[in-house]
């Protein structure tokens, strides 16, 4: 007699240690195999795009801190780049260099978290993650030195940065940057030679090149699938044209490739910070901008390569002090579009690993 079988529905989240915030996946399971996935968003929706319309351009910078709260510096940067484009403002060179140093430190910090949490999701519970936290902590100390904040920096300003670096910053940064490659290599060695990590990540969750492009994936997810696309190279902003660095890409598009791309990018960020420290010019850190900023009527889209992918702000000005419309291009949300294709047909044990390898931040998904 044939046994009667039926599918059942499992809710992963919203309170789940592997969903990195309040995010829910509604999984339809046939035994252990996933048949359908429906991501459910909105638990952290604060209506930032609507709120931004009620505040002035400089006031909106603090909201950007609260999008991807693991990468506040790059959020600040994307927003000020967009406003500067809209209002035709050019930040002084020293400010651009400081922005680059902060953005690259932020990228390292965000990638450390991504790699740490991925291992957490794979079952290496907390131990590797705490080492990543230890290294990230030093970056937070550096940021604390610069702007007095550890999470929501509010450091960048339209036309510059809020304050110059203190004199003890560069020696501390140098010391940190010198110690970091050894750390990354050591842990990379422990992990990339670990057979369990390899079995769980290689050839699992493959996103092909064509799919990655079609799904508008960005950042390490796109590059992990073998597409050499990095806004810092493809459409350089700030002073990135002056630095030598590589754009690492994967070949298969599996979890391992996305993980490798992040590891390599940390090394590249270190190289960029070294060059930026050497070239750092003296001078002003803030351009002269009107006390009450009223950008001319029109629209602008400013974008940067954030740690999680292309982060952009689309702004419409009606000539008043507040943006008429502010839209965030959220890499976390758009990268999640591919989740369904990645998860259907795989075993539930791999679901969290695949999800972790996309690296999202719910603050940015829901906004």
């Amino acid at each position, binding site marked *: 007699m044939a046994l009667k079988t039926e599918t059942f529905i499992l809710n992963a989240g919203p309170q789940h240690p592997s969903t990195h915030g309040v995010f829910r996946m509604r999984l339809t399971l046939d035994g252990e195999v996933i048949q359908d996935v*429906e991501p459910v*968003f*909105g638990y952290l*929706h604060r*209506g930032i*795009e*609507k709120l931004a319309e009620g505040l002035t351009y400089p006031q909106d910078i603090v909201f950007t801190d609260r999008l991807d709260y693991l990468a506040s510096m790059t959020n600040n940067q994307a927003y000020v780049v967009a406003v500067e484009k809209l209002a035709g403002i050019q930040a002084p060179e020293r400010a651009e260099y400081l922005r680059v140093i902060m953005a690259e430190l932020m990228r390292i910090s965000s990638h450390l978290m991504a790699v740490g949490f991925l291992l957490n999701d794979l079952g290496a519970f907390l131990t590797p993650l705490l080492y990543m936290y230890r290294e990230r902590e030093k970056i937070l100390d550096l940021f604390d030195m610069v702007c007095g904040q550890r999470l929501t920096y509010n450091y960048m300003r339209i036309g510059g940065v809020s304050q110059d670096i203190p004199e003890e910053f560069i020696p501390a940064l140098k010391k940190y940057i010198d110690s970091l490659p050894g750390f990354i290599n050591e842990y990379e060695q422990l992990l990339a030679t670990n057979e369990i990590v390899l079995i769980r990540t290689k050839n699992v969750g493959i996103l092909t090149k064509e799919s990655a*492009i*079609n*799904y*508008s*994936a960005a950042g390490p997810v796109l590059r992990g699938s073998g*597409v050499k*696309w990095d806004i810092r190279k*493809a*459409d*350089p902003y700030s002073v990135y044209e002056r630095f030598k660095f590589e754009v690492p890409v994967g070949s298969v598009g599996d979890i391992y490739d996305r993980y490798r791309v992040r590891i390599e990018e940390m090394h590249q960020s270190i190289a960029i910070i070294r060059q930026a420290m050497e070239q750092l010019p003296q001078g002003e850190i803030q351009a002269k901008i009107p006390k009450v900023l009223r950008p001319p009527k029109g629209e602008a*889209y400013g974008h940067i390569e954030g740690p999680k992918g*292309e982060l*952009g702000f*689309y702004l*419409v000005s009606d000539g008043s002090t507040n943006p*008429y*419309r502010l*839209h965030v*291009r959220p890499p976390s*949300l*758009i990268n*999640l*579009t*591919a989740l369904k294709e990645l998860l259907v047909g795989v075993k539930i044990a791999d679901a969290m690993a695949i999800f972790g390898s996309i690296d999202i931040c719910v603050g940015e998904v*829901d*906004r």
Partner: protein
Amino acid sequence: MTTALAATEIAAKLEAALPGSVVESNGNTVVVKDVQLFRAASYLKTTAGLDFNYLNYLTATDYQTHFELIYDLISIEHNHHIILKTRLTDREKATVASVVSLWRGADFQEREIYDLFGINFPEHPNLKRIFLWDGFQGYPLRKDFKH
């Protein structure tokens, strides 16, 4: 550096392929009629030499007299981009064709526009509110929304 293609040239090509589709063009922006949007988007994606295979972002703005939808298209291969726009004047029954079948990356972004602006995308495979709950009254990003 990503090249911004001249909108007038793209508009001329679109007009030749789909007569009467272009409303206006300037800078790097082409505005097409709402009923022709899908065909224009499909043309831009599939025409050799243009190859806009990457939908960078998709959003809307409420200008009170009309909604404007903006599609930022990129060709990764050629590293060039163009902005495609369309305008919807009917606020009550704002509807435009879904582009999910061309770029699957539009999926959540169209749901977001549906949720926050109340614009319909009839061909969308799973059109329902994305951030707000089903019983929520109104569309917050419309300018006439009262909270």
